[in-house]
């Protein structure tokens, strides 16, 4: 693994038994993601995008291959280590409301601090909410926020522990076009200003322009498209 690579997948597969057959969500995928990359992964539903993101985030285990994140082979370590990596180095943003409904927007942003034992203070949480444009929504609960606002809180929360890697799974999937573009601008800003690596999964190929790399997934296989219209490079 190259020093600047923070994600490296080597022939990674994820399969599920379905009756007598084995179904592959992703098959023999190899991928390298360097620090500072903004990778947009597109593909149709069921193409394996979310599964790959979950493998990188240690939310599920691969069936075969090596999945190294921040130099750690996630298959070789216990839950404590994987959780520590997630808590300190990775921020997740999901498509549907990923807020804890019993907590206010402010408390949702503070929540990741519980898992790093370095509390996210009120000032920091407010600063993040301000940054995503929710200055006056600190005390609101998810039921009192619109879909776009919930996504913004999720993004603010993902940034609470100053992660090196953001894994975003269809973060704009249920938003209107205007809000979608605003959210994508925020991701771009994080990537540009803080150098945070972003891996963003979407079914909308139009959003690929926000990243510096565009990967396409189809039937569990991945290929890379050069951003400036260069020929397609098949990675796996």
């Amino acid at each position, binding site marked *: 693994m190259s020093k600047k690579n923070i994600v490296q997948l080597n022939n990674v597969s994820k399969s599920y038994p379905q009756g007598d057959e084995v179904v592959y969500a992703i098959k023999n995928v190899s991928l390298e993601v360097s620090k500072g990359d903004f990778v947009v992964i597109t593909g149709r539903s069921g193409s394996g995008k*979310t*599964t790959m993101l*979950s493998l990188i*985030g*240690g*939310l*599920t*285990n691969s069936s075969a291959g090596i999945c190294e994140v921040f130099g750690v082979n996630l298959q070789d370590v216990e*839950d*404590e280590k994987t*959780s*520590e990596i*997630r*808590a*300190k180095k990775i921020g*997740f943003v*999901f*498509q*549907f409301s*990923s807020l*804890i*409904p*019993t*907590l206010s927007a402010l*408390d949702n942003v*503070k*929540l*990741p*601090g*519980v*898992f*790093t034992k370095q*509390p*996210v*203070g*009120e000032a920091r949480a407010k600063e993040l909410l301000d940054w995503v444009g929710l200055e006056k929504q600190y005390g609101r609960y998810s039921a009192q926020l619109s879909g776009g606002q919930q996504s913004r809180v999720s993004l603010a*929360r993902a940034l609470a*522990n100053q992660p090196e890697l953001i894994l975003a799974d269809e973060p704009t999937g249920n938003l209107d076009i205007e809000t979608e573009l605003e959210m994508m601008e925020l991701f771009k800003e994080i990537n540009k200003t803080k150098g945070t690596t972003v891996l963003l999964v979407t079914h909308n190929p139009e959003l690929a322009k926000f990243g510096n790399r565009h990967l396409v997934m189809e039937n569990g296989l991945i290929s890379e498209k050069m951003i400036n219209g260069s020929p397609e490079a098949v990675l796996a």
Partner: protein
Amino acid sequence: MDSIGISHLVLQNIRRKPYRAVVIALCVAVASGSLFFATILLRGVQNSLTVGQARLGADIIVVPEGHEISAQEAFITGEATSFMMSGDVVMQILELPSIEKLSEQVFVQTLTNASCCIGEFFLVGYNPDTDFTISPWLATNINNQEFGPFDVIAGDRILLRQGDSVVFYGTTFNILGVLEKTGMGIDRTIYVPMEGLRVMIEDSATLAEKTLEISPTEISSVMIRVQKDSDILDVAEQIESKVQGVQVFTASQLNQAVGDQIKGVTGTILGITIVIWVMSLFMIGLIFSLIVNERKRELGLLRAMGATEKFVFRLVLSEASLLTGLGGLIGILTSGIVLISFSRLIIKRLGIPFLSPNPMEIILLTVGIMILSLITGILASLQPAISSSRMEPYEAVRQGE
């Protein structure tokens, strides 16, 4: 609040479904309250019997045939009674072997309209020359001071204090001292020296509203202490076979009678408690299985944020044990309030002796039941906690999408 922790998450989860939380807490409250109630009742009876038996000091009590039950009731609850037999039985018993001490007593009921007190009380005439039940108490508490035939000792529940005067059947008596509380019939008994009692009986014809028809040679009971190493039951059998017209019961039979009386009540309460507890265990387990199932996505999100399996496990267990612990506390407090408020009524209805356990015993019982309540929560939610902590975060997060 500047930062949040597991306790904040637990409290917010409980607030989310308050009715469900109340149901869980109530289940344990009923179980813990019943257990507290039954245990205090049982311990109260045991305490009372221990203290009462020590005060009684007799191994065997001899009464006229057919009066065993009313005599036992008089000793247990202080239910006033009066029955007589010939004083000759004393000499007959003395002829038997293995008798260490023996003292006769005469039982008299006071009149309902006696000037001191409301209700009937139990007057026991004792012989200061032979007595071994009240005399040891007099020796320690009255410092062997001289006392006359009209100086009496009152039980704790008689509303009289040292130095008071009281008139029974027209005869005035002075209260020499008040016995410590035993919870038994002794508390409602007045011990009168035999000489004073005989005077009262004789004078009742002229001074009282009702004449006492008790012959000077008649007695009600004989208290017996057997020699060490003698078999109490053997001696009791000997008395019954050798002395005509008497019935005998031992102090342990007295305990047995109370034990049988209380066993039914406490047994029922304890049985119900166990059933409620087992049902609560399964019900809380079921509720928590539903809870973790409906919160699967949230728990998955927590895992995505970096929560370890242990954290999720602790989160579920903490919520369950907090609710059951709270339920336990509510149950104990409610039961305590009921016991304090209605203890006299309960004791009267059940016809049992009762001497409240000491504070340390109550504290230990409270701590014990609280621990049991917490363990209930932990046991009930163990399986849901294990399954939720072990579920794959990826699958959990995708729930509800």
